[in-house]
């Protein structure tokens, strides 16, 4: 990526660098240790420059706060890198089959750190603050934690590669054993040095990391992707694990919807009274319906079978992240004011309605899996317990099938011996499961009907975004719905004829 075209922020560069190093850890034994050691020298050099560019009380502006800069640590790493460079350069560039070019990935990594350093220098130059604001200080701490974590992982990867080279090539003639051994020791020490910083700061310091404004359509896009993945999985691989994943995600999404609808009502975007008396109870009822299904399939899923398809798990993970980004302030549900600051509630309300239509569609698709219920493999003991429970209470209002009795523990995990293989869903349970599916469809349809009928009040004057005229909400919503319809058509085409 050329410097001109690279629009990544410092935070994005650091995050990508960290992810790149994580992948490198797996590949280290396959790479040349000497080449990686040469790359490590470059990485340390780039990190040193970036570290020095970060604002501190010892930096260009001495009035910026009273925060300590552990510059000594970074200087030590830089000195170590200089020593390694001297020691290995001749061995790595000399003639012979053990010569090693600088590792490409580490060169890329160094480039990203240099780029991040350039960005920091540029923006620092423009700052006129007399004192580092608290959020900036926290963001700088987070950047340091990420840099040092990346160096820690890089040092470990290089040490692994050098150790591997010593084991596999160490006895071969002309192998520069002493140089490699020396590099391995020095880089190993650097790993420990970086580790001391990481232990104190990672991941705690990341809490203060600056958050980019939310991607406008992330939630809607994640919802569409989830919709497609869930329909596809229900049609193609309707296992107990798939049903567990779909019902569980829908239960959680409905919980997020409750929060967002409530905020829309509190902020005056829909009628508060209608929300409180009609929509809130309907949403609560829908969440309970999904919860009942989740309990059933959580208990029935035989853990010895394959987990739900990867595509479904990935879509669930993204939808969970996209909704939490909107509804949570780090660890707690966000206040209405924060959610309103993060997203345009006028645009959000149609997305929430879209979410409910997704829920209705999925409730139907979920119910339709009853055609293949008899082929679904389930865990035998919970199925047996459910048969007994079914006789007493329908449809399982407050179920608990996992018995408290336990035969043994393994590694602290309480277990019951289970020697029976999974079994098809008992026929006697099928009508009850169908009733649960029907109840979910009714609850979803009722909620959707209520939300459609509820009166919107549009944008409140105080919350009108400045660029509202350049980005009209109907266009965005229409485009989103069109994308959703296209995605649905694709999913249906892939699913083939209905069962």
């Amino acid at each position, binding site marked *: 990526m050329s410097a001109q075209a690279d629009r990544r922020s410092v935070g994005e560069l650091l995050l990508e660098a960290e992810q790149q190093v*994580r992948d490198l850890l797996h590949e280290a034994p396959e790479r040349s240790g000497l080449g990686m050691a040469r790359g490590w020298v470059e990485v340390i050099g780039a990190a040193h420059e970036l570290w020095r560019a970060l604002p501190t009380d010892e930096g260009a502006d001495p009035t910026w706060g009273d925060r300590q800069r552990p510059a000594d640590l970074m200087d030590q790493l830089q000195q170590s890198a200089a020593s390694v460079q001297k020691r290995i350069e001749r061995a790595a560039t000399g003639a012979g089959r053990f010569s090693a070019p600088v590792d490409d990935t580490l060169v890329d990594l160094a480039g990203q750190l240099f780029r991040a350093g350039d960005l920091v220098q540029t923006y620092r130059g423009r700052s006129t603050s007399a004192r580092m604001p608290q959020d900036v200080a926290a963001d700088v701490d987070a950047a340091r934690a990420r840099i040092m974590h990346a160096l820690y992982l890089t040092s470990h990867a290089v040490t692994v590669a050098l150790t591997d080279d010593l084991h596999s090539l160490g006895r071969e003639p002309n192998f520069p054993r002493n140089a490699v051994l020396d590099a391995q020791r020095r880089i190993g020490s650097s790993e420990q040095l970086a580790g001391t910083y990481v232990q104190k700061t990672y991941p705690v310091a990341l809490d203060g990391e600056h958050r980019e404004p939310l991607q406008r359509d992330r939630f809607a896009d994640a919802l569409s992707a989830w919709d497609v993945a869930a329909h596809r999985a229900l049609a193609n691989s309707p296992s107990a694990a798939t049903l567990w994943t779909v019902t*569980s995600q829908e239960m959680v999404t409905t919980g997020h919807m409750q929060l967002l609808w409530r905020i829309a009502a509190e902020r005056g975007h829909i009628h508060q009274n209608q929300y409180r008396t009609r929509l809130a109870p309907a949403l609560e009822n829908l969440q309970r319906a999904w919860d009942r299904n989740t309990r059933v399939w959580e208990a029935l899923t035989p*853990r*010895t079978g394959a987990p739900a398809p990867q595509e479904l798990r990935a879509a669930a993970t993204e939808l*969970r992240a996209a909704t939490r980004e909107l509804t949570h302030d780090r660890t707690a549900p966000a206040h209405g004011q924060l959610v309103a600051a993060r997203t345009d509630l006028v645009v959000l309300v149609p997305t929430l309605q879209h979410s409910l239509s997704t829920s209705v569609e999925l409730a139907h698709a979920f119910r339709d899996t009853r055609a293949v219920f008899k082929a679904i493999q389930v865990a035998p003991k919970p199925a047996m317990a459910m048969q007994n429970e079914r006789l007493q209470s329908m449809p399982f209002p407050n179920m608990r099938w996992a018995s408290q009795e336990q035969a043994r523990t393994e590694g602290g995990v309480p277990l019951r011996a289970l020697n029976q293989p999974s079994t098809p869903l008992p026929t006697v349970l099928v009508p009850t499961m169908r009733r649960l599916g029907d109840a979910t469809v009714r609850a979803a349809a009722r909620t959707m009907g209520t939300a459609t009928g509820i009166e919107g009040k549009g944008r409140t004057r105080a919350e009108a975004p400045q660029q509202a005229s350049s980005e009209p909400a109907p266009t965005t919503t229409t485009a989103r719905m069109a994308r959703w319809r296209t995605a649905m058509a694709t999913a249906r085409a892939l699913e083939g004829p209905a069962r």
Partner: protein
Amino acid sequence: MTHPSVGTFTPSAEAVRILTRIAMLLDQATREAADLRRTELSLRTSDLGLEAMLMWAETVAMLPGQTYPEVEVVAVGKDPVALFRQAERLSAELPIEQFPRGMSQLIVRLIVAIRDLA
């Protein structure tokens, strides 16, 4: 270049043992979360169950042949987040490169879940 998730890479018996233990802990977390929801159906308790289930599935997907011992884990009233902590500690017993690809993402996910759901 051969990657641990493809080709000839086979995790060691120790790595498989640790992954299996992590899967069992996460399995228990799903059951404990379901128990919590019996008394309190909230965004937190439902999210705990979802995340425990998704992490459990990712762990099982890393096991060779997606095999899981034929045992049934039971809920005994333990905090699911404490089980996440146990799982995260277990993951540190071996160097990361001895696990299949996906392990580092799982570790990050565990750390984030411990931070966000505690």
